[in-house]
């Protein structure tokens, strides 16, 4: 099995200087720009693009990073097609939207190459916060707290920090090396990270409460649930998160199938099929229990998978995985759409008829990550809502005033840029909480 070209080739490469200048000059410099409104971190997009056009790359990067300290990775992984670039007024002129993501990368790459700091810690104030989870939400929260003058310590269970930025982003969007370089950049600027520390096992919550004034929970999501069908324990069933993570961090043990079946209809499923295809699989099939209109994956991502040659099988659900010791085939049951369920989408139900059997050697479930229930349920007096941490959206404060939360453990799975925005809001919330406590103790 031969990969087609470089299977990890970046899909949005860096712009050459001239190309960046030409693209920046195309920007209309809208007033109260829709791209800025569409960005969860509200980066002043026209301002940073104008600065690229004038050759003020330092200022451009500053504009980006002040709003989004993970601006460099967001430039690579943001679904710009549905955020800033999707809002670009050029679209209404039937012109191509400005390549905002790639311009953001141009400025932030420059900043990293030229020894700029991602942020500057503010004058020190009394107050410390513990951050549980070293993914985008936690890192953004920590950086923002440092900017405000508070101490922040990130506890991360993984060997390497960065969360899904390091382990979960499709390789052709961003490499773990880049993610780690960005995290290293934040560490140089003052973010403290304790890697390989599991809260509850290595350090107790009581201990954190003793040491810190406030605690931010940004633990993300856990594993993808088992399919719960016969054969789902066979060798050759690898969930999408593990499949991508192994390719990124443990390539010798990574799996690349010849005939691959991916189960699911979200963006992770698309990442898995596209990556499997690029690794040289002869046949990649995405099996989704609803129809194309119900698929939660972004249209542009689905298009990318289609262009890679992936086959889409809608209205089918796996009923059995067949094989002696390892996967040899998968049996699919025809489905039909019934009445709408709690999510508002029509609920799929078995349609009867004979099952279809697909020969395959790798089955990749991508049916959604489960909440980290054990950890979340151990948080004192923190209310959960359907497995997610319930928060006040403005401050990201939980039902326990000392606890704040953000990222996928709150949202159930969104973009890096949403996690950053929530981390930022939480930092402001934590600062307000710390100051209010001080007033109480003074009073």
């Amino acid at each position, binding site marked *: 099995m031969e990969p087609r070209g470089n299977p990890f080739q970046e899909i949005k490469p860096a712009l050459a200087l001239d190309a960046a200048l*030409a693209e920046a000059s195309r920007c*209309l410099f*809208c*007033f109260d*720009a829709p791209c800025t*409104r569409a960005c969860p971190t509200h980066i002043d997009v026209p301002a940073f693009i104008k600065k690229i056009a004038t050759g003020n790359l330092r200022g451009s990067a500053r504009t980006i990073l002040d709003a989004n300290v993970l601006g460099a990775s967001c430039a690579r992984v943001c679904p710009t097609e549905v955020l800033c670039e999707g809002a670009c007024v050029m679209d*209404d*002129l039937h012109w191509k939207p400005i390549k905002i993501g790639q311009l953001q990368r141009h400025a932030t790459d420059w900043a990293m190459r030229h020894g700029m700091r991602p942020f500057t810690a503010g004058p020190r104030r009394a107050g410390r916060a513990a951050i549980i989870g070293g993914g985008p939400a936690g890192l953004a929260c920590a950086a923002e707290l440092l900017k405000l003058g508070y101490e922040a310590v990130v506890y991360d269970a993984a060997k390497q920090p960065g969360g899904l930025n390091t382990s979960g982003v499709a390789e052709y969007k961003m490499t773990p090396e880049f993610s780690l370089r960005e995290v290293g950049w934040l560490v140089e600027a003052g973010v403290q990270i304790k890697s390989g520390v599991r809260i509850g096992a290595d350090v107790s919550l009581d201990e954190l409460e003793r040491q810190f004034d406030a605690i931010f929970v940004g633990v993300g999501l856990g594993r993808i649930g088992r399919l719960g069908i016969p054969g789902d324990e066979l060798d050759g069933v690898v969930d999408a998160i593990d499949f991508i993570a192994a390719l990124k961090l443990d390539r010798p043990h990574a799996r690349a199938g010849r005939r691959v079946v991916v189960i699911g209809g979200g963006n992770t499923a698309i990442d898995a099929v596209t990556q499997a295809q690029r690794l040289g699989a002869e046949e990649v099939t995405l099996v989704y229990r609803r129809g194309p209109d119900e698929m939660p994956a972004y249209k542009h991502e689905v298009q990318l998978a289609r262009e890679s040659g992936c086959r889409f099988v809608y209205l089918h659900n796996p009923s059995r995985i067949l094989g002696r010791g390892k996967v040899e085939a998968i049996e699919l049951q025809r489905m039909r759409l019934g009445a709408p369920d709690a999510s508002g989408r029509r609920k799929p139900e078995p349609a009867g008829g004979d099952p279809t059997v697909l020969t395959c050697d790798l089955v990749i479930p991508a049916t959604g990550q489960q909440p980290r229930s054990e950890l979340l349920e151990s948080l004192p007096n923190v209310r959960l809502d359907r497995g997610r941490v319930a928060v006040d959206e403005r401050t990201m404060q939980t039902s326990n005033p000392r606890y704040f939360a953000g990222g996928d453990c709150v949202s159930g799975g969104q973009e890096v840029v949403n996690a950053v925005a929530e981390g930022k809001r939480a930092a402001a919330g934590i600062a307000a909480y710390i100051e209010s406590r001080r007033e109480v103790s003074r009073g």
Partner: protein
Amino acid sequence: MADLKVKFAGIESPNPFWLASAPPTNTGDQVMRAFDAGWGGAVWKTLGEPIVNVSSRYSTVDFNGQRVMGLNNIELITDRPLHVNLREITEVKKRYPKNALIVSLMVESKREKWHEIVKAAEGAGADGLELNFGCPHGMSERGMGSAVGQVPDYACQITSWVKEVAKTPVIVKLTPNITDVCYVARAAKQGGADAVSLINTINSITGVDLDTFTPRPDVGGRSAHGGYCGPAVKPIALNMVSAIAQDPQVKIPISGIGGISNWRDAAEFILLGATTVQVCTAVMHYGFRIVEDMIDGLSNYLDEKGFARAGDLIGRSLPSVTKWEELDLNYKIIAAVDQQKCIGCGLCYVACTDGAHQSISARAEHGRTHVEIIDDTCVGCNLCSLVCPVDGCITMKRVDTGRPPLTWKEYQQDPAQHKHLGPHNAH
């Protein structure tokens, strides 16, 4: 199909498109390739006493990612031996008898020097002569070029020396580096000039290298002001051409020069009084081939407008060029936004609010910026429609004031009668 042939001060040309005296007309090879490409005429790069050039010689002003909005040069007149230039002129004229071949001249301000060079150029076969009274750099330090063109008496004197011996039409090329270009045009006419050409380049420093602090072009760490041309100078040239075209004391043909890059630019110069146009920068940027669209475009335009000849277009816009004091104070327009076309960029709002008359409102509506013109306070300045990136989205609509035309001169006679125009009318 419209006839593009023109007759300029007696010189016949298959079309009004000439190459200006500049690097593109430096050699016979270039001029012949230009004629092959379709150029109607060429003004040979200025002949004179041998000079030495420096490097570099050019610098540009780029704008929003577009190269060469303006071009600056510090190149001098021809640096090739006179006899080589003359031999090539003869050769070109022999091979291209129907094209207009003008020879640009510049020598010391001595009568016999001018007589010599005029005879040499005409002897080689020139159809006409262009006296370079415009070059603003280098040569002007030696008392030539714009040093002559900036003093009407000198311009008149040298023109008359040339006319003493010239058998072909004499065109005087004017410098814009002067308070009122009409004075020199009149002086040229008085000296016997058959035509004028303008504008020559404008004194300029295009920019400074922010790392070395040396202005461009950099000649070993030093620089000197040069002559500016290209699309950026067109408005200045159009104004000067129209001023001379309207001057009752001039009334000789005009060859328009200054930022002409395409047939549209050419048509504008002709509408404001030029008979032929001369091009340099656009050719230095894109080559001789651009003339194909100039010929094609102008021809199609003349056909569409129902003109049989390019000459019919000359000066057609002049009757509407007037003094400010002749404009109608009671003419009123206000802006109107086509909401169907609006893309919500907000540029009109910010331009009007910060840069003009605070007569556009903006609000976010369904995540988009929605703008509206405040009719009561809109002064009809036009800025919003100029900055709007969408074609036809903001238009200016006529408002009937119900009042007869009124000029400033009439208004001044009795302002009290026209209270609606006074400052008390402000909101």
